[in-house]
């Protein structure tokens, strides 16, 4: 039996994905809207879901809307904006209790889907524009979200690395938009963008829980009416620099943040993607990885030293927190670990260990309904149909030679260091 049974139905204008499972006490609904990451639209897309989440025609104030959700046994509703490669993705999530665990049963699933439909297609709009006051509040909040990146130094260093590294590529954009453009947004222009997005975005709707797929499909057919569309495709280039870019930035911080970006040239679409996963795991993905063992355990230079992949952009990103005076030493050790990877300086035991942990991590991720949606959505982004079982098999089948081949492709691109005022 497959690890996960995903039923995918092509509907007019969107794809419906249903995963029936008895695992959860709740049912999870996630509506996803995808479009290319683009300077012109990024700020519109950053504010749009927050506007829609605040009110609707039926629930003209946040108070009314949230009271309704509380009455639905605290249905959880939130929105999120992110990027996957050079795609800009808006998500609306609703999680409702499964009524069979409640004393007084009422049809919460149908109410949840109806609510989501109301939020998406019946916004608080009059005369072709969103509610002015709400727009003013949400513009302020959007600026706040953009500004808050600066206050979280770990996140800030991560964002700055990508900005520097991908300077000329759409990937340098933050999914939360461009601060300087927020003031230009108007209640009318956002509404116009909303209409366009609903017409053109690639749409996917996930329903996870103890549900009857036919019943769910019927509810959706009754509620959703959309037009067919041909979603825009992105064409992504793998930029490669001839020299390594090195950036140092000074701020009043107690701990320096050393973030390093590598290009791998491999994304989720590619055959060697699973070898890249294993490569990253041996190098810096886990607590048995080279970065953790050498930067932290052996040299006591950091509390955290790790790497992660941007799977749809083909980047490998290293992050660590160190004393500013140890910059050279930490950088040297990190570079040495990459050299060791390129030379094949890792054992079969390390390979097996890493595969086991990657498979474990994937299986754990899909134990949460949200995690499962994120994993399944990779296929939509990359136009693939890799099942969870394929995923596990392909990780397990990875050979040392394939890891070595990946290693030869990995190229140091940018070194970013956020340093204290006294250091370096």
């Amino acid at each position, binding site marked *: 039996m497959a690890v996960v049974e995903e039923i995918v139905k092509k509907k007019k204008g969107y794809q419906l994905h249903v995963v029936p499972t008895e695992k959860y006490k709740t049912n999870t609904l996630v509506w996803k809207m995808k479009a290319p990451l683009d300077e012109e639209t990024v700020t519109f897309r950053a504010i749009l879901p927050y506007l829609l989440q605040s009110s609707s025609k039926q629930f003209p104030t946040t108070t009314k809307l949230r009271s309704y959700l509380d009455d*639905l046994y605290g249905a959880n509703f939130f929105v999120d904006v992110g990027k996957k490669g050079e795609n800009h993705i808006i998500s609306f999530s609703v999680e409702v209790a499964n009524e069979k665990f409640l004393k007084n049963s009422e049809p919460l699933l149908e109410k949840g889907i109806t609510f989501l439909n109301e939020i998406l297609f019946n916004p608080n709009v009059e005369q072709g524009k969103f509610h002015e006051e709400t727009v003013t509040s949400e513009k302020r909040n959007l600026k706040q979200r953009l500004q808050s990146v600066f206050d979280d130094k770990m996140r800030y260093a991560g964002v700055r690395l990508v900005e520097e590294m991908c300077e000329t590529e759409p990937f340098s954009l933050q999914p939360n938009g461009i601060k300087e453009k927020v003031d230009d947004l108007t209640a009318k222009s956002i509404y116009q963008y909303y209409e366009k997005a609903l017409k053109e975005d690639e749409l996917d709707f996930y329903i996870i829980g103890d549900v009857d797929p036919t019943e769910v499909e019927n509810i959706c057919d009754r509620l959703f009416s959309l037009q067919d569309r041909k979603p825009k495709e992105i064409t992504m280039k793998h930029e490669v620099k001839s020299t390594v870019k090195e950036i140092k930035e000074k701020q009043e911080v107690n701990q320096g943040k050393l973030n390093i970006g590598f290009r791998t040239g491999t994304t989720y679409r590619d055959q060697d993607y699973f070898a890249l996963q294993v490569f990253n795991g041996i190098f810096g993905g886990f607590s*048995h990885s080279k970065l953790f063992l050498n930067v932290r355990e052996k040299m006591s230079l950091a509390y955290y030293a790790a790497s992660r992949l941007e799977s749809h952009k083909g980047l490998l990103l290293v992050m660590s927190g160190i004393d500013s005076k140890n910059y050279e030493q930490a950088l040297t050790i990190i570079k040495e670990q990459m050299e060791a990877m390129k030379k094949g300086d890792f054992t079969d035991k390390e390979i097996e260990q890493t595969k086991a942990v990657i498979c474990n991590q994937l299986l754990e991720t899909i134990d949460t309904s949200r995690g499962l949606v994120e994993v399944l959505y990779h296929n939509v982004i990359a136009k693939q149909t890799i099942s969870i079982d394929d995923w596990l098999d392909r990780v397990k089948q990875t050979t040392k030679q394939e890891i070595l081949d990946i290693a030869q492709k990995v190229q140091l691109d940018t070194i970013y260091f956020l340093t204290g005022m006294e250091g370096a």
Partner: protein
Amino acid sequence: MEKIVFDQLQEELYYEKMTNGLDVYILPKKGFNKTYATFTTKYGSVDNQFIPLNKNEFVRVPDGIAHFLEHKLFEKEDGDVFQQFSQQGASANAFTSFTRTAYLFSSTSNVMKNLETLINFVQEPYFTEKTVEKEKGIIGQEIRMYEDNADWRAYFGLIQNMYHHHPVHIDIAGTVESIDQITKDHLYECYHTFYHPSNMLLFVVGSVDPTEMMQFIRKNQEEKDFKEQPEIKRRFEEEPVNVKEKKQILKMNVQTSKCQVGIKAMQTDLKGKELLKQELTINVMLDMLFGRSNDHYLQLYNEGIIDDTFYYDYTGEQGFGFAIVGGDTEHPDELADRIQKILLEAKSGQHLTSESLERTKKKKIGGFLRAINSPEYIANQFTRYAFNEMDLFDVVPTLEEITFEAVQKMAHDFIDEDRMTVGQIIPNR
């Protein structure tokens, strides 16, 4: 082995007290890939004055030692335990809170082997001077990382405003100076005092066979030699009722201000059902006053005084408890005033309605169902509750019992000007 059935939730919990005093709970979760286990000792950062095992006098240990011990327990003569877990396909971790230190793993294969590794590594300490010294660098960086974290500084700043003496005001990781005093002898002394099975709880949740697993744990424990240990004697200095500081402002390298209002609990000697009731009632009350379905929220939001980082929470343990309300703001003084005003008005009977109580109760019940989808939540919260003699699975019935009068009385008793404090973080530009 005892079996406890929760009909409405369709869950079964298995329990056994081992002969050495260890409490073991197993909750099978159908359909889950993962098994999650926590092995927790009732020993946290607040336990800094106690009588060590086989001694008669109280000692005071360096700040941050419970957390330091947590780090060091992973290291053994033949390397660190993380390696062993990852070879077995598991990921391991640990955390130290005010009152607990928990060791945990999660895995989707080799569950018994991983469980054995977890139990054994926690029950076989190995500390040397050399490895203790090495760890000071790593924990030093952990402390520095938190020093740059404005949310953490705001949180701890507020607790420091509230408490004069109680060690809850001491940072869990200690300071670079305090951890420098820690030796391997300190670690052994704390270890032998607090890591006795009778002071610990093992919780396993996931796709497991409870009978087989209980048998396995029983055998593992019977093979080990633990001498019966008397009850641990801890000491806490007398804590005044009122807050230490009414207001503190901290300047940091941030762009946005933060403002939080704290209320120190008045009654901290509760345990069991009473503590659970207090905690839930205060949380329900805060939700009725500051939740998003409330007019106050919308007003503050529309006026630009709060943004979506606004939050509120109550933490209650034996010996201390506090509520926090606040978040990021462009108007820290205005926010402090408004929160305090709403609270004091609630004390005098305003803003609370029986209609919003019913709504909040429903919301909390749904929230509980959502939470118990998570093995992590079940294990961690069950343990916290058990150490306070409460039962996680009493949450829904206890919520249902909360009356409007009880909320009003709680607002009246809990909210008090002298037990309120304000903490702010202001950009240093």
